[in-house]
């Protein structure tokens, strides 16, 4: 890197910028206020010629801080990609001309807006450094798979097929998990009309035949430490021996266990002829092609009732709040066992409330069941009693709205799936500081947790035994399942390089588990590969920057270690934060948390933002030109504003928008500085938080909202109205609302008046 910082500012006049703005004036601003040593204007900057102009200056003139004054930072990223220099973007197109009316009276304020964005980009440039890859990265590309069921086996095979070594650890004596116990499985291929063989033996054989897969049976994970690319894992066997293995990424596929049927005595579990769907699989296999016989007296079953969703989908104590989803297809499959082995005249009745038949197979398989005359009755079962030598199922028929009953030789209960996980680190985390922010985090977590309101028995034995400050196992998202977002980023957990797959992530059937395993394997490979070159994984994939801290300034307050959503920061022996760069997602939440502002990235720091907001020209109180600052999350809010611009939705000319990596990275010093500099209003726009959050860093937006809830004290101290600072959740689709929030703030300022802190 060049010793001296040399700013080159390049102003584009294409896309109408030149028609709407005074380019000469912008040049002057870049030169005089921005202190750019090189300033050039080009009529089509993203063209090959424009790009070459810049590259020439980098190559021949020593420009190493490039400032592009053109379109949004989200546009033309392929054209404006230069090695070895930093890049700042003044958003003159989406940020200025597209959101302002093309009129004479608007001209002055529009130009002021553009001038400020040029100043801000130059100010940022001064404080940016070119990031270099993390040197503490590991090189291990081996994938550890924990759990030898269908998910784990598939993840192992898929990783091996992609060319990666795999260590497959199974706590039991053989591979296969639940699938080994099944008589048949739900079909996975057209015409989706008959149960099919599980194919488990072929799968096990394929694993045994692979020279890339090592299997450890009767084994558990005694300790996991390190980071992507350099995990160190102790494998303990039942016999007591322990070996240490190194892996690059981990997939946890520990599956599920069934909810306890004995917890629902009304359904008569305990009577030999009332069984779970899992037990029916054994019964069907035992029949060995002959008719299925009931356990009590071996009589051939002529009528069977399937009771769906036992203890599921309920807020009652002891019941699962979710529906396991796969049980209805299982019931259809099992009803077909009876049609096949006990004859077409064997009555099979599935009593459901909400029938769910997901997946490719689902609907076709359901129809096939109907064709085979499986009877589907929408109803709520209240009781199963013994009646003579048969069973009486009492239920309310929900279509005909009447209480009724039926007799059956056998009753099959569809029990819910409970994930096999370790303890949730955030449900049990001991807070050893009196930091009230951290406590709030913990309480929020508890609300989501299963234990808090819904005391269903969950395993508390650790699975991974993570040697992390934040707890021994993967954080749970909802109802005890391991995930960080069911829709947007599946498999990702909040522990970088460790992925969840299969029913431990959400309830699912075999077909879905196989898909899941494949997806998680690819994620794991990606993480290990990224780690090898010192880059970030999801969601800032490829980012080379990572946080460092100035030890001499650190007060050991531990906020960064507590607030990091990904458990990336441990503490060293002296109590200072110990960064594990490989685990870091580069969101900057630690930077936002630090009260003494010692944490920074080379290209993202308290200064790079702080200098931008200070670079804005603040007109004096009597100019009647207020200044509003928007700190917008680059993931959703900033794109929403860009899209608003594409739709030519106008907003106030007094606003200056600064993109941030995540609202979690917002340090309150920026707010204080902005208020002190004379800004009249401040808006923070972050992603949706809470249960159905959309924050790309899971907790960043939530943490920011909590921090900002305390900003009132600062406003009080400054004797400012609390309406001057607002924090919003903005979704990427809020293309009309985001500009409206800005305009609302402008209206508020007009109402309450200008800030007195202008100089």
């Amino acid at each position, binding site marked *: 890197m060049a010793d001296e910082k040399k700013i080159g500012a390049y102003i584009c006049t294409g896309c109408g910028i030149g028609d709407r703005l005074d380019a000469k004036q912008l040049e002057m601003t870049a030169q005089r206020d921005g202190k750019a040593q090189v300033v050039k204007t080009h009529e089509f900057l993203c063209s090959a010629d424009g790009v070459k102009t810049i590259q020439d200056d980098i190559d021949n003139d020593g420009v190493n801080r490039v400032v592009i004054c053109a379109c949004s930072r989200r546009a033309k990223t392929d054209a404006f990609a230069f090695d070895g220099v930093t890049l700042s973007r003044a958003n003159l197109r989406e940020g200025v001309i597209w959101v302002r009316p093309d009129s004479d009276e608007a001209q002055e304020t529009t130009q002021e807006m553009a001038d400020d964005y040029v100043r801000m980009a130059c100010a940022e440039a001064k404080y940016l450094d070119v990031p270099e890859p993390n040197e503490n990265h590991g090189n291990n590309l081996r994938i550890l798979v924990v759990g030898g069921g269908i998910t784990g086996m598939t993840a192992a095979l898929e990783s091996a097929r992609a060319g990666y070594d795999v260590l497959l650890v199974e706590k039991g004596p053989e591979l296969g998990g639940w699938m080994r116990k099944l008589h048949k499985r739900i079909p996975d291929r057209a015409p989706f009309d008959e149960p099919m063989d599980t194919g488990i033996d072929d799968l096990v054989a394929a694993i045994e035949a692979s020279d890339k897969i090592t299997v450890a049976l009767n084994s558990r994970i005694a300790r996991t430490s390190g980071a992507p690319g350099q995990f160190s894992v102790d494998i303990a066997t039942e016999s007591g021996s322990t070996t240490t293995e190194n892996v690059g990424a981990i997939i946890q596929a520990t599956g599920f266990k069934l909810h306890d049927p004995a917890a629902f005595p009304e359904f008569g579990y305990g009577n030999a002829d009332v069984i779970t769907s899992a037990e029916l699989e054994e019964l069907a296999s035992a029949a060995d092609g002959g008719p299925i016989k009931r356990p009590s007296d071996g009589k051939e079953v*002529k*009528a069977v009732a399937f009771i769906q969703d036992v203890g599921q989908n309920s807020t009652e104590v002891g019941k699962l709040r979710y529906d396991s989803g796969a049980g209805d297809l299982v019931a259809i499959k099992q009803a077909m066992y009876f049609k096949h082995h006990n004859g077409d005249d064997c*009555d099979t*009745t599935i009593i459901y409330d909400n*029938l769910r038949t997901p997946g490719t197979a689902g609907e076709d398989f*359901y*129809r096939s069941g*109907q*064709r085979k*005359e499986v*009877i*589907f*009755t*929408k109803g709520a079962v209240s009781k199963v009693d013994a009646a*003579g030598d*048969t069973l009486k199922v009492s239920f309310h*028929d929900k*279509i*005909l709205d009447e209480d*009724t*009953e*039926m*007799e059956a030789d056998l009753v099959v209960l569809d029990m819910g799936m409970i994930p096999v996980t370790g303890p949730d680190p955030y449900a049990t985390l001991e807070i050893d500081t009196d930091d009230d922010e951290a406590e709030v985090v913990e309480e929020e977590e508890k609300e989501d947790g299963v234990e808090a309101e819904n005391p269903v028995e969950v395993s508390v034995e650790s699975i991974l035994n993570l040697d992390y400050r934040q707890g021994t196992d993967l954080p749970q998202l909802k109802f005890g399942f391991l995930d960080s977002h069911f829709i947007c980023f599946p498999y990702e957990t909040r522990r970088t390089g460790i992925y969840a797959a299969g029913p431990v992530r959400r309830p699912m059937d075999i077909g879905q588990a196989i898909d899941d395993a494949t997806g998680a394997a690819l994620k794991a490979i990606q993480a290990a590969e990224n780690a090898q070159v010192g880059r970030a994984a999801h969601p800032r994939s490829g980012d080379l920057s990572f946080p460092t801290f100035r030890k001499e300034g650190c007060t050991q307050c531990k906020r960064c270690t507590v607030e990091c959503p990904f458990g990336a920061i441990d503490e060293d022996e002296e109590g200072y934060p110990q960064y594990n760069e490989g685990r870091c997602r580069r969101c900057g939440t630690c930077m936002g948390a630090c009260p003494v502002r010692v944490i920074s990235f080379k290209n993202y720091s308290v200064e790079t933002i702080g200098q931008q907001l200070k670079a804005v020209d603040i007109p004096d109180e009597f100019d009647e030109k207020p200044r509003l600052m928007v700190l917008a999350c680059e993931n959703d809010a900033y794109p929403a504003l860009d899209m608003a611009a594409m739709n030519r939705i106008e907003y106030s000319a007094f606003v200056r928008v600064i993109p941030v990596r995540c609202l979690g990275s917002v340090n309150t010093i920026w707010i204080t500085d902005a208020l002190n500099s004379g800004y009249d209003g401040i808006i923070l726009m972050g992603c949706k938080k809470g249960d159905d959050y959309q924050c790309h860093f899971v907790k960043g937006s939530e943490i920011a909202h909590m921090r900002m809830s305390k900003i009132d004290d600062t406003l009080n101290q400054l004797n400012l109205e609390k309406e001057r600072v607002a924090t919003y959740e903005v979704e990427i689709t809020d293309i009309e609302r985001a500009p409206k929030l800005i305009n609302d703030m402008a209206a508020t300022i007009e109402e309450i008046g200008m800030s007195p802190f202008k100089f």
Partner: protein
Amino acid sequence: MSNTAMVKKYRNDFLREVEEKVEEGDWVRMCMQCGVCAGSCPLGDAWEHPPQEIFMMIRAGKREEVLGSDSMWMCTSCYNCIVRCPRELPITHIMHGLANYAHRLGLAPKANPTRRFAKIFWDNIATSGRVNELKLSLGLYFMDGFGNGIKKALAMKDVGLGLLKTGRLDPMGLFKAGGIKDKSGLQKALKKAREIEDTRKGY
């Protein structure tokens, strides 16, 4: 098996009967109870049991309640349920089939006007081969006896007069032979068809 009557109805007997005897009856088992048919029917409010409920009643073995219901007789044959059913059940035809079956067994509601009109209509066309609109409407009006017939006919006299004046009703229709030439051939063919159907359905 010591099944009580209540339990027996859950043993599919009526469903089988419908599958074997009713036109398109083998589709009944394919209903998934979404209710789109009920919401799509122009006379939906007039149905005591909308189609999806009828299907459920069939599965639940409610034979008398289904066959004695006047619900199916509310069908206007608009085919909206057919084109909207996500399971592609020919609901209109099933309703017609159930109505026909109930009528043939003598279980359909005796007084239902659509049932009576439909019978008059069929007899009208099966005899002459073509519809005689005057005979048909008079037949309908007078089906409850002479007094009622006069009342109904009078209520409709403006409609009739309008058609008459515009040449769209034949006042002599009552006395004309009308219909197709080969009435006897058609009658024979229909008689044969009925015989075959009766044998097949075991009436």
